[in-house]
C-alpha cells in the first residue's frame, strides 16, 4: 500500500489536488479551474487518489464532491514511526555485541 500511496502523491498535479481537497470539498469542475489540465485528466487523478484511500467521494444530485481523506496517509506515518524506533534499538544491540566480540585480528 505504501508504495502506491507515495507514487500517487509523487505526481505534482495529484499532490496539488490532494492539498486543495485537504482544505475543502470540491467538484471536478471546481478543481479543473485551478489546473491546466482537462476535466477527464482531473477525474483520472481523483480516481488514483481514491484507490489509494486518499480521497473520498460524496454524491449529491448530479455532482460528485471530493474531499481529502488524510487518514489515508497513516501507513506512511506508521512506517516512519516504526523504523525511528527500530534502528536505535538495534544499534544498541550492535554496540553491546561488539563489546563481547574478540578483536578483528583474532577473528578470521
Amino acid at each position: 500500500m505504501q508504495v502506491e500511496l507515495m507514487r500517487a502523491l509523487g505526481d505534482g498535479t495529484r499532490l496539488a489536488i490532494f492539498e486543495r481537497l485537504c482544505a475543502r470539498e470540491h467538484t471536478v469542475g471546481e478543481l479543473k479551474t485551478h489546473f491546466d489540465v482537462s476535466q477527464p485528466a482531473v477525474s483520472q487523478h481523483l480516481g488514483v487518489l481514491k484507490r489509494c484511500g486518499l480521497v473520498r467521494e460524496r454524491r449529491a444530485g448530479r455532482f460528485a464532491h471530493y474531499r481529502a481523506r488524510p487518514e489515508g496517509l497513516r501507513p506512511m506515518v506508521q512506517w516512519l514511526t516504526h523504523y525511528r524506533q527500530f534502528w536505535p534499538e538495534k544499534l544498541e544491540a550492535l554496540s553491546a555485541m561488539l563489546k563481547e566480540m574478540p578483536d578483528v585480528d583474532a577473528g578470521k
Partner: protein
Amino acid sequence: MLMQGNEQIVVDYVLAAPPAKVWRALTEPELLGTWLMQNDIAPVVGHKFTFHAPPRGDWNGTVDCEVLEVVPGSKLVYTWGGGSAKDDGHKMETTVTWTLAPAADGGTLLKLVHHGFHPDDFGFKMMGQGWRSKGAAIERVLAGIS
C-alpha cells in the same frame, strides 16, 4: 513528524570498536544475526538475501534485500523490502546505507541512512525545497494523525 523535511531515517552512532570489526558485524551473517536479525547476507553487489524474525503485528517477519554497493570497510548499501507493511502484495521498497568512518580513540562512527522513498515518490519530493511552504493544509492534517 512527517513534515520535518526528514523523510529518511538517519542514525549516527559512535562505537568503541574499530571499523574493521564493525564491518564484520555488518557483513557476516552470524554476527549480523546476533544484533539485527537472522540472515544470509554476503557483501557482494547483486547478492540477494533475506532477514527473518518472528512476525509481529502487521509485519510478516521477513525483509527482502539486495546488495547495491560495497566499499569494503567503509560503505554498504542494500535494498530493504517489506518490513512493517501488511502482506498485501505492495511491500515498501526502501534502501539502507551504512557508512563507517574511523572515530577518535580507535572507534567507529557508524552512520545509518534508511531512505524510505523512491525519487518518484511523495516522500522524496517532500524533502525538496519549497514543498513545506505550499503543503500547509497537509501539514495541519498530519499533525492530527501522527
